[in-house]
C-alpha cells in the first residue's frame, strides 16, 4: 500500500497531489509537464518537496511535518529511468549485481532468476554501450529488482523506444507484475501501456490529481485523456481464452460481458495461447457501434446485448455511451446526432457491435502465464 501527498512549487509550476494505491501496478498518467515525474522523484527521494508525506507498506519515508526524511540510498525504492542509466564502466552482470551487493540479506530473486525472467542470460558479459535500447531497459529493470526494493518506480520506461522495442519490453513488464511480487508505480502517457499493466490509475493534470481509481473505470473516460490519446479510451475487459478456430484463424474469449471473437492469439513462440489463459482486452470506444436491433447482415462478429447506463458529452460532435453488458461496461463513441436519431438514453436496450479486426496486439495483453 502506497500513500503519497505532496505540495511542491518550482517556479511557475505547482505540484499539489495526493493519492493512495493498493494494487500491484499503479499507473501515473498524464501529459508531459503534468508533474508525474516530479511525483515519482519525490517518492524516490530525488526531489525534496516543500511539504509532503510518503508512506510505503507502513514505512514512512518522508514526512516534512514530523521532520522525517529517509535518504535516497536507504529508501529501498527501485527506480527504472526512461533512459536506463546503466553504469557505463561496469559489465551487465556488475550492473545487475550493483544493488544486490548493497541490499540487506533476505528474500528476493537472485541473478539467475532475474536473468531468466527478463531474458538477460546472453547479455551478462557485455557492456552497456554495446546493448540496444530495449536490452538496456531490460537490464535496468533487472538491476532495480535485484536491489530487493519495497516498491518499483518505472518512469516512462518505454518512452525512449520505438514501437518494435516497446512490444519487446511490454511482455516482460507484465511478467514482472505477475511474478516478481513487487508493487509497481508506472508512469506513462500512453493509454495502451496503462491498460495493459495497471490495476489502479491516477490521472494527473497541471500538477493536480484529475481522477484516480480502478483502471477499468478511469480508462472509460475519454475526457481525462489528452489529445491523441483520447481515441484510445475505452472499456477494459478481463476475459479468458475459450477456444481457437483454426479454420478461420480466430480465437474466442469469454468473460462477464459475453463472448468476443478476435484474431487468433499466439504466444511469443508462435503457438496458440493455452485455453483458460486470462487476457486483458481493451475495447476502444471509437471501435464500438450501437444498434437498436441485433444486426443480421453485418460483417462484424462481436454483437453484445446490453443496456445504456449513461451518456456523456453535451457539446461537440461526439458523445460517449456507456453500455452495461452482463457484468462489464463497454463504451461507444458515437456522434451526438446518432444519440438523437436513435433516441439513446439510460435504460435503453441496445446491441454493442465491435469488428473482430479492431483487436490487435496493442489492445490485447495476456494477464498471466502467456503473452502475445
Amino acid at each position: 500500500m502506497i500513500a503519497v501527498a505532496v505540495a511542491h512549487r518550482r517556479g511557475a509550476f505547482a505540484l499539489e497531489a495526493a493519492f493512495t494505491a493498493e494494487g500491484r501496478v499503479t499507473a501515473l498518467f498524464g501529459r508531459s509537464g503534468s508533474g508525474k515525474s516530479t511525483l515519482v522523484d519525490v517518492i524516490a527521494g530525488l526531489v525534496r518537496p516543500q511539504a509532503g508525506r510518503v508512506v510505503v507498506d507502513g514505512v514512512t519515508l518522508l514526512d516534512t511535518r514530523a521532520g522525517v526524511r529517509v535518504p535516497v540510498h536507504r529508501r529501498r525504492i527501485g527506480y527504472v529511468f526512461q533512459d536506463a542509466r546503466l553504469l557505463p564502466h561496469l559489465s551487465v552482470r556488475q550492473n545487475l549485481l550493483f544493488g544486490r551487493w548493497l541490499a540487506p540479506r533476505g528474500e528476493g530473486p537472485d541473478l539467475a532468476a532475474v536473468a531468466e525472467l527478463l531474458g538477460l542470460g546472453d547479455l551478462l558479459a557485455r557492456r552497456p554501450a554495446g546493448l540496444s535500447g530495449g536490452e538496456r531497459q531490460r537490464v535496468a529493470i533487472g538491476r532495480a529488482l535485484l536491489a530487493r526494493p519495497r516498491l518499483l518506480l518505472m518512469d516512462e520506461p518505454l518512452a525512449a523506444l520505438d514501437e518494435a522495442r516497446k512490444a519487446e519490453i511490454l511482455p516482460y513488464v507484465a511478467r514482472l507484475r505477475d511474478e516478481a511480487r513487487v508493487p509497481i508505480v508506472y508512469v506513462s502517457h500512453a493509454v495502451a501501456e496503462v491498460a495493459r499493466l495497471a490495476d489502479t490509475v491516477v490521472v494527473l493534470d497541471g500538477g493536480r490529481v484529475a481522477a484516480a481509481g480502478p483502471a477499468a473505470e478511469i480508462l472509460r473516460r475519454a475526457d481525462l485523456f489528452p489529445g491523441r490519446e483520447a481515441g484510445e479510451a475505452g472499456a477494459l475487459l478481463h476475459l479468458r481464452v475459450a477456444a481457437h478456430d483454426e479454420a478461420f484463424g480466430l480465437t474466442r474469449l469469454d468473460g462477464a460481458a459475453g463472448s468476443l471473437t478476435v484474431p487468433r492469439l499466439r504466444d511469443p513462440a508462435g503457438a496458440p495461447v493455452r485455453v483458460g489463459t486470462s487476457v486483458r482486452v481493451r475495447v476502444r470506444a471509437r471501435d464500438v457501434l450501437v444498434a437498436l436491433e441485433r444486426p443480421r447482415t453485418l460483417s462484424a462478429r462481436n454483437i453484445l446485448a446490453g443496456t445504456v447506463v449513461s451518456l456523456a458529452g453535451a457539446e461537440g460532435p461526439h458523445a460517449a455511451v456507456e453500455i452495461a453488458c452482463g457484468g462489464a461496461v463497454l463504451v461507444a463513441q458515437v456522434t451526438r446526432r446518432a444519440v438523437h436519431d436513435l433516441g439513446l438514453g439510460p435504460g435503453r436496450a441496445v446491441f454493442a457491435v465491435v469488428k473482430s479486426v479492431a483487436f490487435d496486439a496493442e489492445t490485447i495483453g495476456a494477464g498471466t502465464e502467456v503473452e502475445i
Partner: protein
Amino acid sequence: MCPRGEPGAAPSIQGRGRARPWTPRAVAPSWPRHALEPSGPALSLTPDEWSALRLSLLVASVATLGSLIPGLAVAYLLARKAFRGRALLDGLVHLPLVLPPVVTGYLLLLAFGRRGWFGAALAEVGIVFSFRWTGAALACAVMGFPLMVRAMRLSFEAVDPRLEQAAGTLGAAPALVFLVVTLPLALPGILAGAVLAFAKAMGEFGATITFVSNIPGETQTLPSAIYTLTQVPGGEAGALRLTLISVAVSMAALLASEWLAHRARRRLAA
C-alpha cells in the same frame, strides 16, 4: 629521505671538474678522480646529472602523489558543490598559474622558511621544507596544482549526475557513489591532471630555485641543473643531455597518460 646526505656536503654538477662560484654551498668535490675526466661516450650521464635526474623524478613523483588527494577534493568541490567562498577558493587555486613563479617561490619562503609563518612550527615537529628536496616537492606541487585541478574538475563536470542518482536509488551512500561511480568515470581526466602536474613538476624552475635554491643533490632538479650547466664554460654537452632527458621523460609521461585514458575511454565505449 635526503638522497645525498647533508646539503652542504652534496656533490655538485661539476662542469667537467671546474669549481663553481655560483653557489655559496659548493664544496670541493669528493668523488673518485675518473668521474672528473671526460671519458666514455658523450651520451652517458655524469653522476651529478644522474643525481639531478633522480632528484627530479623523486620531487615530481612526491609532488604529484602528494597533491592527488587535495586536488581531487578541490576539483570535486568546485565541480559539484555550491558553497560560500567558492569563487575565493577557485581564485586561490589558480593564483600560481598567473603569479610570476618567483613570487610564488618567495611567498613559500615567507611561509615555510625556517623562520617563516608556518616553517618554525613545522620544524618543531621535524618537518623542514627550506633548502631541502621536500621544499622543492612543495614548490612543484603548488605550481602544478592549478593544472591538476582544472583537468580533474572538467572530468568531474563531465560525469552525468543522473548516473550518480541511479546508483543512489540502488542503495549506494554518497561516499560509495563517489568511489565506485564518479571516480572511475572521471578517471581519464584524473590521469590527465596527474600527468600534467607531473610534467609541470619536472619542468618547474622559478618557484623552486627561489624557495629552496639550487643545491646539487638536494634541490638541484633537471631545470636547475640545465640552467647551471648553461652558466659554466663547457657545460653545453651536459645541458643538451639533460634537455634530451627532460624531453624524453615528459614525452613518456604524456604517452603513458594518453594510453591509460584511451583504455579507460574504450572501457566505457565497448
